């Protein structure tokens, strides 16, 4: 075990898989010698050469189009989009191509080996174009897997599983935790299962559900609620698609209450999908409406970031409202 921050854990995962599999190639804007704007790909070019770790021109649709071709050829591309906010120029290549390659060809061709890494989320004073959480746009598109780690240990294990998974994976990294979160990470190879939620903390009064950087917020809110004698169960969804409805439903049937927290705007956010499914599966067990604590339905603001964020105080208030309903 070694102490690593989230970036080091990602770097360690990439080194692990590039050493094992010659077919793995890492590319994107500035990822070569410079190691990416956040340095997640540091030293890869020195270790594995310019042919396997390289800079691309500034063209997101080009990066993903190129990655789709590579993946369909049988290589294992790990493409970086510098910020999740800049993934939209590649939207067509992801939604119409990456996601549908296997289906449209009846399984003859696929982009299953592709992993798209991208930083997402706020809390870094990034304003409109460096703070978005675009997971719901992609969750609406059949054929993609979406994975979000919450700490360095999760990041390495989930990234290795994503790269080796036989489906294209959008791997969203909480950039606010890149250097803030440090944990023990095995230097050796390990994988964490995709599509499986993680029970972070057991409790009996309410289930708090989130992913990525928001797990920290849920933890803080749960600690506040504990002072009031409220016992919170915390679940990290980890995979947005496919998502582990079974684990969530089981928890809700036990606690009778559910609160979902995400940074993205509330309307059409993935919390809506979860709420609809859980009311379908657990209707008679629910003792209160399912609460959503989300971003506002506005672009992500700069000066009012603190007010915009679904933080622990808003979460704590929602816990109280739900329990009192």
């Amino acid at each position: 075990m070694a102490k690593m921050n989230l970036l080091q854990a990602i770097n360690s995962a990439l080194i692990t898989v590039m050493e094992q599999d010659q077919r793995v190639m890492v590319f994107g804007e500035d990822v070569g010698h410079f190691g990416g704007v956040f340095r997640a790909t540091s030293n890869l070019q020195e270790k594995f050469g310019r042919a396997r770790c390289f800079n691309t021109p500034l063209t997101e649709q080009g990066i993903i189009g190129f990655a789709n071709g590579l993946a369909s050829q049988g290589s294992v591309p790990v493409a970086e989009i510098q910020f999740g906010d800049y993934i939209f120029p590649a939207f067509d290549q992801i939604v119409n191509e990456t996601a549908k390659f296997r289906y449209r060809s009846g399984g003859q061709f696929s982009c299953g080996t592709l992993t798209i890494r991208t930083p997402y989320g706020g809390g870094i004073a990034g304003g409109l174009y460096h703070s978005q959480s675009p997971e719901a746009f992609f969750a609406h598109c059949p054929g993609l897997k979406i994975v979000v780690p919450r700490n360095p240990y999760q990041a390495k294990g989930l990234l290795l599983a994503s790269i080796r998974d036989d489906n294209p994976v959008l791997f969203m990294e909480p950039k606010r935790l890149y250097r803030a979160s440090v944990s023990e990470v095995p230097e050796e190879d390990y994988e964490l299962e995709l599509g499986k939620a993680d029970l972070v903390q057991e409790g009996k009064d309410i289930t708090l559900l989130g992913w990525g950087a928001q797990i920290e917020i849920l933890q803080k809110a749960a600690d506040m609620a504990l002072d009031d004698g409220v016992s919170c169960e915390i679940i990290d969804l980890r995979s947005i698609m496919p998502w582990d409805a079974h684990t969530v439903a089981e928890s809700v049937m036990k606690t009778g209450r559910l609160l979902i927290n995400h940074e993205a705007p509330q309307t059409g956010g993935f919390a809506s999908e979860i709420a609809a499914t859980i009311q379908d599966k657990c209707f008679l067990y629910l003792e209160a409406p399912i609460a959503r604590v989300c971003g506002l339905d506005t672009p992500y603001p700069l000066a009012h970031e603190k007010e915009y964020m679904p933080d622990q105080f808003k979460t704590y208030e929602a816990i109280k409202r739900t329990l009192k309903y």
Partner: protein
Amino acid sequence: MQDRNHLARVNTTHQVHIIENGLIDIPMLQILKPDGTLHNEAREPELNEDTARKIYDTMEYIRVLDERMIGAQRQGRISFYLASTGEEAAAVASAAALSEHDMIMSQYREQGALAYRGYTTSQFMNQMFSNEKDPNKGRQMPIHYGDKPLNFMTISSPLGTQIPQAAGYAYGQKMAGNEAITICYFGEGAASEGDFHAGLNMAAVLNCPVIFFCRNNGYAISTPADEQFAGDGIASRGLGYGIKTIRVDGNDPLAVFAATQQARKIALEEQCPVLIEAMTYRLAAHSTSDDPTGYRSREEEDKWRAKDPIQRMAKWLQQKGWFDEKANKQLIEESRQAVLAALKEAEKVPVNPIDDIVSDVYSDVPWHLEEQLNNLKQHIRKYPGEYPKTSGRVK
């Protein structure tokens, strides 16, 4: 760290110096005259009788297939078709210059390239009738062919998306050490999409062994080329991206063959992209949903009919003594019958079982799709008469 100088190749001037489009002169390679003789100074590519006949026969076959399938669409037997009449040489003669190991990434008007590789009439029909023998499992509109054994990538409807993909595919071939390249077909309309610019730039910078083959056929549905781009066609764009470029008469099978053969050699030996712009004309409608009489004249079409690539090659074959009028007529007749027979056969084949509606979305069927399929089956069982294509097989 390496010292780089991006001004190394820049000349200086001390007057305001404006470069105009007219100064760029990209000639068009022509080998065959319309009468089947060679232009002065033109050299025949190395083309033996078998290959020459195969190119010709494939072009004739595709014309027959196109005619019959447009008819079938008019009769309501298939929902859609897209003919390549007038452009057969562009697809067929270019495919003939490739190795069978080269990947073909097609737009949608390259049935000639697929036929040249050996796709059978039945295979064409099964795809167009979306039956259970369709390798796409009935998920795409007619003409979205794809065949892994023939190295022909399944066609996608969105325009131009195959262009950056071809760069990536070719990069993968290079990294795997394959003695193969990728060819990517598209029309001049698709060259307006962002994917074209992204793909060419990526391929040039990352040294990908790929041929970008543009069929400049005059129209993008109803929009004529001069409303699609300014400047000297698509070829000049290749030069702008630092890509070796050839412009060729797309209705001259020998010129297309020679240009593609040379492009392939460069792509493979120098591990770099090459752009070919084939100047041709879409004599057919864009698709069966289009009516060209609304936007172009009969006279214009007739001018291009006189440049028919099939006629031109027939005359050349005759001069070589490689053409037998009677055998050719018989071949066309046999093709017509074969197409009709395969059509009737494919029409009778049922669609895929309903389980295939959720397969291939992911490598395995996840829980939510399993649930949705079970609900759907239960519903079909309740209303079998409303879902006659599948209800017989839902137990």
